[in-house]
């Protein structure tokens, strides 16, 4: 059945994507909702919640306020909180109720900015799209509003990491490993959007020679940086030692010739009946290439989330619904996916669990492996 899931959970929602992307930037993020979105976010989607403070709030929208369209209360509440907290910026996003009553978050943000003097922006979330849509719009907005036009191009070769959130990389040291790998590959890291960098570092992102897009969440921001500064982007995650070398070479080429590239999608054509990787397109594509590099086997990506053609290879398939996943799994020689996909994988098809925070939340958080720039030793498993 279309849009029906009997067994599988859904991915983290767009509101969680916004909060996750903006978490470390010193701004205030307000979800306009009765409640529920924030507890889902803090309990399941945000591993930093108990270790690191961030200004993430819920508006506690009431039925009467929703029916009456009382935007002024929201605007006043945000202004009062901002006066106390002095955030660097204010992001306002909505959940299903505001979506149903047609709340105009851009207009609300404009009113908040006029009232507080703090840069404010509204985001088009509705609690029903995936985290990628929310994180993508949030990072794109940060790139457009806070990256300084006068940022000078650095003298030494440099790069930004764009699209890193714990929803895709957990907090297991993977992002730090990507930073180290970049440095070892000859790049100074100007900023990481948005783990481990503050707004001041990100404001200098225009000085980089190339942007490394590590998830679909970062693609729109990278395109905005391309438009503003002419910086090329390269899509891929340095998963596995072999693919990490390929990706480093692609980054160096892009920095040299100014051309965008998507090494995560430049794979041998995976076919039905072969090995399949399930997940976010940039990471899954990179893992597929890493497996291909180590085993020589072509691997296809089964993508349950938003992506675009440039990030996919021939033979890849979208699996937006549970039925699609079950059908493609049944035809595969093996499936690499979050453990919560296991129940829709037929018994005879080998299943390799790889936890993804955005899908299984904290269920397997402690066992998310760091696969960056290391030999995957796949001969032991696949």
């Amino acid at each position, binding site marked *: 059945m279309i849009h029906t899931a009997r067994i599988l959970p859904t991915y983290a929602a767009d509101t969680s994507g916004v909060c996750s992307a903006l978490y470390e930037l010193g701004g205030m993020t307000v979800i306009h909702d009765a409640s529920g979105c924030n507890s889902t976010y803090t309990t399941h989607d945000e591993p930093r919640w108990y270790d690191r403070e961030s200004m993430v709030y819920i508006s506690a929208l009431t039925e009467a306020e929703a029916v009456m369209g009382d935007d002024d209360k929201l605007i006043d509440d945000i202004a009062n909180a901002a006066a106390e907290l002095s955030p660097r910026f204010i992001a306002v996003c909505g959940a299903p109720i505001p979506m*149903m009553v047609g709340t105009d978050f851009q207009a609300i943000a404009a009113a908040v900015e006029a009232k507080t003097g703090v840069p404010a922006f509204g985001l088009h979330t509705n609690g029903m799209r995936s985290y990628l849509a929310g994180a993508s719009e949030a990072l794109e907005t940060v790139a457009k509003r806070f990256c300084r036009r006068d940022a000078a191009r650095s003298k030494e070769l440099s790069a930004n990491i764009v699209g890193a959130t714990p929803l895709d990389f957990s907090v297991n040291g993977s992002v730090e490993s990507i930073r180290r790998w970049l440095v070892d590959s000859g790049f100074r890291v100007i900023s990481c959007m948005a783990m481990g960098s503050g707004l001041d570092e990100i404001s200098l992102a225009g000085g980089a020679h190339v942007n490394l897009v590590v998830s679909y969440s970062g693609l729109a921001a990278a395109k905005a940086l391309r438009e503003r500064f002419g910086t090329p982007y390269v899509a891929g995650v340095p998963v596995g030692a072999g693919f990490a070398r390929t990706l480093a070479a692609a980054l160096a080429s892009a920095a040299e010739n100014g051309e965008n590239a998507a090494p995560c999608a430049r794979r041998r054509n995976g076919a039905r009946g072969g090995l399949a990787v399930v997940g976010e397109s940039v990471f899954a594509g990179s893992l597929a290439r890493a497996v291909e590099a180590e085993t020589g086997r072509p691997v296809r990506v089964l993508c349950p989330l938003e992506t675009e053609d440039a990030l996919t290879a021939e033979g890849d398939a979208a699996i937006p619904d549970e039925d699609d996943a079950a059908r493609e799994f049944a035809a595969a020689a093996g499936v690499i996916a979050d453990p919560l996909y296991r129940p829709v994988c037929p018994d005879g098809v080998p299943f390799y669990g790889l936890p993804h925070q955005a899908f299984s939340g904290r269920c397997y958080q402690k066992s998310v492996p760091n696969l960056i720039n290391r030999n995957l030793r796949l001969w032991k498993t696949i």
Partner: protein
Amino acid sequence: MIKIAVYGKGGIGKSTVTANLSAAFARLGKKVIQIGCDPKADSTINLLSGGTVMPVMNYLREFDREPERIEEIAKKGFGHVLCIETGGPTPGLGCAGRGIVTTFNLLEDLKLFETYKPDAVLYDVLGDVVCGGFAAPIREGYASEVLIVTSGEKMALYAAGNINSAIHNFADRGYAKARGIVLNRRNVENEEEKVRAFAALAGLPVIADIPRSDDILRYEEMGKTVVEGDPSLPVSRRFFALAKTLLEEGENDE
């Protein structure tokens, strides 16, 4: 590009005014999109020779998926005016206002303006600004100006007052501004005086004065606007005059 939303009391002649204005723009060589924002989905009927286009809400209901191409939910009518109707949910169910927001989001996803590159976009909106959804056409990025259609009838003027107040309430949001009143005559007593008094009070000009005309009805019976049927008629010339005024202002603004 000029972008205009047409509001007014139910039954006052918004669709007649909007469709004739679209036809006039088209006859003046302009590329036009008309978007009907009423669950009845009959805004563009007289641009389509009495035919219909599949409303966006009907498409979603029938196919249980979003359209992938503009052509699936749009039809070219007289003068190549691109006709779109939001339609609405099953009568008595769902949320018509939300349907308008959904339609607009969809048109944005389909990059309607970027691909079609219209000179004029007209939104024909249901009776009153009853909720957030019906204010969607005047949000930033959609219409930049509002025409309020009224006759001299008391309830029509009352509705026009409400619409004008709603627009004023949104002044700090960067929404569309009220451009003026279109007097669509019903031949009530002292009609012009009443409407001009209202307009003066509201601080708005009467930008067009459309006479009561059997010609409009005659051509609508044939599934046409009067501008299509006979552009030389006095009533048609009123629509051309309104179109030219709006175009000239639009060009000056650019």
